[in-house]
């Protein structure tokens, strides 16, 4: 309605001005005989104006509705705006724009899919040389350099897995199944996968989870979450014989899985930004082995699985990350 009034105010003014002008002109020429004629003149003109405006309004109502109510979906722009020339024109314009955008989106979708396939293939290809090095190391077991190479090999593997998961995250919708998962067995599995890392950093795990405790989640992604949290906990623990504690318990908000370390902690100014992508903060600069992606990916996965994530940390005392399985 507002747009309609704005749109037509100039018409109305022109009309009124025109009427006034003719009125004075006629009057001066002595065209009006009685006062009634004057009223009649005014009434007829206003009536015609009103009818015209009503006609305009109703014939273009759909267009005005569309203009006031902005579309929330891309497809909404395609609904018909009416049959008047201006409506048809607007529809044509929108449709053309829609097609242009669709073309671009399709192109990007295709590129994204290509990229995803590439990353997938590439990571799997890289696993072959890793396997070869792995085998050679096994044959040279006991040589002093073997352990060093093995450590670096593990770093490469961790990086590759991260890349793979990052790529998978974009197609998350096709890649997860919610089932009942035993928290204890997931924690044990991940801890055992990281045993070399634990031993090398002289950090030791402790799993305090009831062996019957289950949650509804996707096993693969939950493992990914726990793995990232554990790797972080190990990475940022300095000094020897400190523990990383993986525990689970019930709280009023739901079941909670907690990974707690006695590491360096996160500085106050960094903690609010740890879930941002590529954000490494002070610890990232100090420890050097940070991509800034770990916690971002974890929080994204949590979001998609519908789990909450909380982080709490005190510099010098340690960090505690909680995954809350609500509902």
């Amino acid at each position, binding site marked *: 309605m507002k747009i309609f009034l704005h749109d037509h105010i100039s018409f109305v003014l022109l009309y009124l001005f025109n009427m006034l002008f003719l009125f004075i002109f006629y009057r001066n020429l002595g065209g009006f005989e009685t006062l009634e004629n004057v009223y009649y003149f005014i009434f007829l003109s206003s009536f015609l104006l009103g009818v015209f405006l009503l006609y305009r309004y109703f014939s273009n109502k759909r267009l005005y509705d569309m203009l006031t109510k902005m579309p929330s979906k891309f497809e909404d722009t395609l609904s018909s705006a009416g049959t008047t020339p201006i409506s048809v024109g607007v529809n044509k314009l929108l449709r053309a724009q829609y097609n242009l955008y669709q073309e671009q989106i399709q192109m990007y979708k295709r590129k994204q899919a290509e990229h995803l396939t590439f990353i997938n293939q590439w990571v799997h290809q890289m*696993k*072959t040389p890793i396997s070869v090095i792995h085998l050679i190391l096994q044959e040279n077991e006991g040589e002093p350099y073997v352990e060093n190479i093995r450590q670096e090999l593990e770093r490469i593997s961790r990086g590759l897995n991260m890349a793979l998961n990052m790529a998978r995250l974009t197609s998350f919708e096709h890649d997860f199944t919610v089932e009942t998962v035993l928290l204890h067995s997931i924690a044990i599995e991940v801890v055992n996968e990281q045993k070399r890392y634990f031993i090398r950093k002289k950090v*030791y795990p*402790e799993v305090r989870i009831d062996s019957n405790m289950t949650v509804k989640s996707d096993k693969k992604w939950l493992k990914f979450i726990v793995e990232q949290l554990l790797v972080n906990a190990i990475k940022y623990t300095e000094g020897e014989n400190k523990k990383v504690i993986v525990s689970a318990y019930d709280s009023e908000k739901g079941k909670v899985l907690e990974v707690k370390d006695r590491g360096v902690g996160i500085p106050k100014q960094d903690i609010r930004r740890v879930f941002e992508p590529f954000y490494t903060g002070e610890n990232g600069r100090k420890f050097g082995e940070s991509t800034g992606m770990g916690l971002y990916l974890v929080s994204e996965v949590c979001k998609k699985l519908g789990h909450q994530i909380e982080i709490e940390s005190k510099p010098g005392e340690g960090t505690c990350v909680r995954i809350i399985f609500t509902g």
Partner: protein
Amino acid sequence: MEYKIMLVEDDASIAKLLSSHIEKYGYKPIIVNDFDRILDIFIEENPHLVLLDINLPKYDGFYWCRKIRQISKIPIIMISARDSEMDQVMGIESGADDYITKPFYYDVVIAKIKSQLRRCYGDFAPGVSEERRIELEGLTLYPERPELHFNNNSTVLTKKEAVLAETLMRMSPRAVSRDVIMEKLWDDQAFIDENTLNVNVARLRKKLQEVGIDDALETVRGYGYRLNVTWRK
């Protein structure tokens, strides 16, 4: 009896390493180089077991697995870098008996080959009937009992002590780093720490004394431990 194991792996390095390792265990490896004729080679060679990669040129491992299954029931073990559940399920559904993900350990491959052969052809795979024994200058360890024998003395070890003794004996006279030992001692259910290692080393020293060996287990500062052969006359 010598078992023939057909190796279908398109990466030449892995194929070579794996085949030479398989050979060490007394099996006869057959490396496939022509990936268009996998089925023909299978029929010609008539192997006892197939190790099959999934990523192969032209047709993948699933395809060949189904092809082989149409004519034979022999054990097929898939080895692949694809570690997703989906791929493992597909592997088994195509008729594979087991699935190993890359990177893999030789020991795991050998153990799975042994178990498949045992299941398929009875109990006469090499090395199965014989008890494992590690010897070092008259000191003998039976890791499966587990017992330590020297001269006419013997003592019973715990599982962890046996693992520790085996590692040190195999590597002697070289030193073994703490990290390597801890990795071997690591238990999948109850994780170990530095303390566990120290305790087990102390206990093994005592057990060595019991069989009449003193001061053989040396601490290498800042590195690990070494077993010196001090009992040789």
